[in-house]
């Protein structure tokens, strides 16, 4: 990743939610994730979309709804789906991983995501997931270091060079 810019995904009554476009790719990371997985993982995607809508309009980005991943400020959504295989538990943790940066409870930047397969224990074992988390960590560090005003950056379509 060399450049990134922010785009608004949801204008909520509680908070606004953003995503990032990397290297002028023309599509933000969140929509890339939705496009790729909405056919085969519709139950997961429905849960994620529904939760984002509630975060934007009702609850805000509360810390309890997210789970830390490697670096404190990069989170992944907690998400459960119906467990069709196992006899015991009705719900299992979803295989989908969607990473985001949470700036307090009022700004949420959603990045890319993917599938954490059953045969891997940690996301670091998956090249793609590892790269997505690394990208989010890089953006997070840049935000902290340069005190970026995300709202202004979106309004002016400002692009940031790393």
């Amino acid at each position, binding site marked *: 990743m060399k450049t990134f810019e922010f785009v608004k995904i949801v204008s909520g009554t509680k908070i606004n939610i953003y995503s990032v476009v990397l290297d002028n790719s023309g599509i933000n990371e969140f929509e890339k994730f939705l*496009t790729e997985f909405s056919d085969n993982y519709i139950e997961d*995607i429905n849960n994620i979309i*529904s939760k*984002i809508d509630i975060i934007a309009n*009702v*609850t805000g980005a*509360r810390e*309890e709804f997210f789970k830390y991943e490697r670096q404190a400020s990069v989170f992944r959504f907690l998400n459960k789906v119906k467990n069709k295989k196992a006899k015991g538990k*009705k719900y299992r943790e979803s295989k989908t991983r969607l990473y985001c940066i949470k700036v307090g409870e009022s700004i949420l930047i959603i990045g890319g995501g993917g599938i954490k397969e059953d045969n891997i224990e940690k996301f670091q074992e998956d090249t793609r997931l590892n790269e997505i988390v690394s990208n989010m960590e890089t953006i997070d560090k840049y935000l902290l270091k340069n005190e970026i005003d995300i709202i202004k950056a979106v309004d002016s379509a400002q692009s940031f060079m790393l």
Partner: protein
Amino acid sequence: MASKLFEKLLANIPVKVKSFNRISMEISATISDILKEKGISQKELADLMQKRESEISKWLSGNHNFTIRSLAKLEEALKTQIVFTKFDRPNITVQVEIKYSEPEIKVNKVIEESIASNDLTVKENYQVAKIFKINPVSGYERVA
């Protein structure tokens, strides 16, 4: 402009999925707020309820399928009502500061109209009796 793809996918989500997430997340957020207000940690709540802290963390994640029994136990442990239905009545004490010259002003109507028009800040699902002060500037016209 917001994401059209997001809007399109949101519009197609079954109501039961939206409802489950909304209810679970709202209950989680309510419990979390009560814990903060009362200065109770997740660990302390776990001890109160004889559960593991990881279990409490799950309850607050916005994914939990709460049972009525578990909510009742939570209300008992937290000594606070968590779930409200349409049968719950607001328990509000309102102190009205009237700045009108007309003595016949109908105070109750001012209160009702102020609540309806969101002049009052009514918080936490009305569970706590609070004193509100109303300072309407042009409210009198609505009372007539």
